[in-house]
């Protein structure tokens, strides 16, 4: 029997029992669609978290004052217990590290902002012009960020978050206005675009001022953080080591700072959510298995309903192999049609999710789609095998009597 004839014969046979075939196709489609939609959800969550992290700035290395790692008993700990301050000069020194592209010192405190009789407690961040690039801040039109000059100069300017703008200035234009921050009078030169994100620091409620101004405002010399951006992803570890080395040298050989990489945190989340996606895909794959069993059931019914036909084919000289192949390809066709329909259904579902929640990137990962399609086809064939063998093994005399 020619291959094209087997395919045509199987197709006609599948179409000959439309309801039965359609139900199997539906079951298979639901299974594949479940895998596609659920992995789109899982992978969407992973992408969402990753994008939140990258919104903080990419290739970030963060320097904190003090040691957070717990060591064993160390004589050095007995002699010096208080860590040295992390200063603006420390930050400037880190620029010498070859793996560092740019950095921004960060001094953080709270203060009161007042304008036109309104008063509000705010978080004040003192930094330099580089902070905008390091943290990937977006500004509203007509805005300026901190002037790009010496970190030691305390220019009397401020950049405010969108929520501060709304609450303090209301409908008035904020740029150019003079505000009072603590005991200083500052001019508002820019507004941070509303983002509502930022992992721990809400930029909508932030006031950014030059670092020297912030330090004198809080009467403190120390920095809260130094945000360091490495030249590339590969350079992150180098930047971390170099920063540690430079600061150790500046602090009298003592390692009294902690350097963490955003990458390490990100990688953990990435792994965690990747595992979650795989688990969800596995659960969805169970429905594919169920669909496979349904295909088997449907094919067994087909064999028993078409027993007389199988007997006839044998009488007409069909080999057992041809009959087996015909039933197998019928199962494969049903599975394939189901897989295709499920793929389209799943993509439509993911599209709907993305349309409903635009911030959530619910795209099914390629591996999950490929795995779903292959599993559908494989289970269809696997579960088609038994009915096909049964058909091929029928006794022609018995089969012909079943009319």
């Amino acid at each position, binding site marked *: 029997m020619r291959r094209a004839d087997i395919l045509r014969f199987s197709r006609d046979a599948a179409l000959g029992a439309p309801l039965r075939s359609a139900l199997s196709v539906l079951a298979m489609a639901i299974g594949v669609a479940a895998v596609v939609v659920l992995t789109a959800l899982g992978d969407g969550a992973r992408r969402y978290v990753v994008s939140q992290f990258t919104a903080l700035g990419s290739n970030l290395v963060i320097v904190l004052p003090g040691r957070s790692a717990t060591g064993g008993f160390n004589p050095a700990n007995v002699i010096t217990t208080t860590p040295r301050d992390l200063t603006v000069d420390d930050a400037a020194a880190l620029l010498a590290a070859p793996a560092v592209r740019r950095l921004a010192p960060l001094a953080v405190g709270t203060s009161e902002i007042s304008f036109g009789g309104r008063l509000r407690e705010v978080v004040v961040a003192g930094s330099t012009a580089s902070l905008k690039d390091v943290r990937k801040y977006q500004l509203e039109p007509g805005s300026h960020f901190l002037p790009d000059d010496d970190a030691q100069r305390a220019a009397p300017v401020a950049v405010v978050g969108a929520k501060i703008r709304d609450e303090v200035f209301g409908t008035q234009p904020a740029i150019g206005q003079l505000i009072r921050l603590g005991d200083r009078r500052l001019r508002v030169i820019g507004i941070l675009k509303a983002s509502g994100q930022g992992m721990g620091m809400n930029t909508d409620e932030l006031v950014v001022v030059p670092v020297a101004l912030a330090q004198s405002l809080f009467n403190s010399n120390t920095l809260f953080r130094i945000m360091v951006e490495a030249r590339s992803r590969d350079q992150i570890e180098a930047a971390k080591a170099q920063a540690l080395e430079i600061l150790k040298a500046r602090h009298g050989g003592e390692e009294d700072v902690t350097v963490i990489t955003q990458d390490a945190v990100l990688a953990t989340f990435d792994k965690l959510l990747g595992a979650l996606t795989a688990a969800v895909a596995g659960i969805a794959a169970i429905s594919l298995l169920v669909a496979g069993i349904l295909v088997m059931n449907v094919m067994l019914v087909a064999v028993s309903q078409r027993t007389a036909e199988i007997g006839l084919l044998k009488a*007409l000289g069909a080999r057992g192999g041809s009959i087996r192949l015909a039933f197998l390809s019928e199962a494969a066709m049903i599975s394939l049609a189901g897989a295709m329909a499920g793929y389209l259904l799943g993509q439509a579902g993911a599209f709907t999710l993305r349309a409903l929640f635009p911030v959530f990137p619910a795209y099914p990962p390629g591996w999950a789609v490929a795995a779903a399609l292959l599993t559908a086809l494989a289970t269809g064939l696997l579960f088609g095998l038994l009915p096909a063998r049964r058909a091929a093994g029928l006794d022609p005399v018995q089969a012909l009597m079943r*009319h």
Partner: protein
Amino acid sequence: MALIELVGIERVFHLGDSVVRALDGIHLSIAAGEYVSIVGQSGSGKSTLLNMLGLLDRPDAGTYHLEGRDVTTLSPDEQAAVRSRRIGFVFQSFHLVPRLTAAENIALPLMLAGALPDERDARVQRALREFGLENRARHRPDELSGGQRQRVAIARATIMQPALLLADEPTGNLDRATGEEVIRLLEALNAGGVTLLLVTHDAALAGHARRQLVMEDGRLRHDSAAGGLQHESGGGSPAAPVSGGV
């Protein structure tokens, strides 16, 4: 050389505790081109004999030579090949595939044998013409009359130009007039050289055949060619059969 040579064919069925000897020491020789009818009561073994001759069933003992070749020892696939090329079946209930058109039903054996579509179409067209089914080619079995269905079945059975045509009660589901028309068709094919074996319980119909076999309890009770009881004669030397269809 005989087309069919059966020697000591036995076929036993076990139904629960009881043993049914469906074929009990059958010796039979049929020459090419003969027209043979097999009559007998239901359960006499005539259908089992026909299935045996059509290679749908295997004997428990004995040998079957078809065209001089021992076909009892062939593998299932080899037997399928013999069925495909040398044997045509006509059934009482027609056994047409309901979802296929008349033309597609006739083309089935060609398709199973792997014939090319062009050759297939040509032969099916010729068969449709010969059997007067040209304007029924695209009809499905449920749109055909009983006589037309059986003509489609006969066209299908002969499309591979077999040497042997096995008809199991071909008129059983037809009215008298249509039945006679089908018998005339089969006899015309026999006249064209095909060996025709007709199983029936209709004595009048059996009378058409030049050689009549009567079966009873799995044995050949009567062979008109031998002129008497058959089961004593050796399979290799039956009386000379009447030459048919020449």
